[in-house]
């Protein structure tokens, strides 16, 4: 039905995940200002991709499944993005005119 990845692949993925877990922990101890959160999230996204593509074997799944998986994240970002349509513009001072 599907190709079966080797144990070696799984172990490499696991080692990478563990490495980045500790990486994110130690990087968080260094003050990088705004970059702390950016790096933490980038690492988290990278780890998530590893889990999804290898452990959950999304790379071998049909395009339809990939679409649904991507759709979930897209929709969550849409939710967040639309919250911030309101929240980032709350303090903008309105001029009397429209534009």
């Amino acid at each position, binding site marked *: *039905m599907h190709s079966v990845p080797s144990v070696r692949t799984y172990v490499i993925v696991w080692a990478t995940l563990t490495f980045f877990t500790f990486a994110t922990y130690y990087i968080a101890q260094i003050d990088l200002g705004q970059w702390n959160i950016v790096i*933490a*999230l980038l690492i988290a996204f990278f780890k998530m991709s590893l889990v999804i593509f290898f452990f959950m074997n999304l790379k071998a799944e049909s395009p339809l499944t990939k679409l649904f998986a991507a759709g*979930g994240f897209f929709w969550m970002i849409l939710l967040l993005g639309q*919250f911030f349509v309101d929240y980032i513009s709350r303090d903008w001072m309105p001029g009397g005119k429209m534009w």
Partner: protein
Amino acid sequence: MTEPHSAVAEHAEHSPYLRHHFDNMEQQFDSATLGMWVFLLTEIMFFGGMFGAYTVYRSMYPEAFASTSMHMNPAFGAANTAVLIVSSLTMALAVRSARLGKQQALQMFLILTMIFGIAFLVIKGFEYHEHWVDMKVPLFSGHWDYSNTPEFPHQAQYSHQAQILFCFYFFMTGFHALHMLVGVGLMTTILMMARRGIFSTNYFTPVEISGLYWHFVDIVWIFLFPLLYLIGNARKLI
């Protein structure tokens, strides 16, 4: 518009686990997998609501969140991340064993996954206990106090928003732990099915979709860890 259709071909590979309304095992497996992914979609949105609210408040009160995060113990968080990642590995290997028809290995990996899952919950329990002793559980009024952080003497100023972060902390990790409990329950069921010899290279759908669920719960934690534990570690505020 229609005409009779002989369904002989569909009954060629007949398995006792093929449900009547499916044509063949392939269709049944694909449906179950797709169904699980759609379910995970709803799970993403379920946690997404909390992540969304979290992001709004974090952007509103960045300093309060950074300083309140000092109450968390990142060592616990990192350890739990590592434990969960190991459990994901064993789960992936369990699915692999099921696909290859290695029944003994399947059972072993399922047991390992359960052990690591329970280990995660135990560590989480210790952590909750520590927060309780530390008076950080915003449950009953008068039973919390956010001012006693030796590393950060000015915490008192954020006592209001500290409650918000702790609410998020307990809601998010609480719902996550609930999902872990469900996951352990699933593992138990799958293990019992495996012991009864239900699975074969032809039929391992329950293992596959439980695996997807387990990995998803792992992914939620991958995000919870930096967002709850690692906000303010590097910041020496004021």
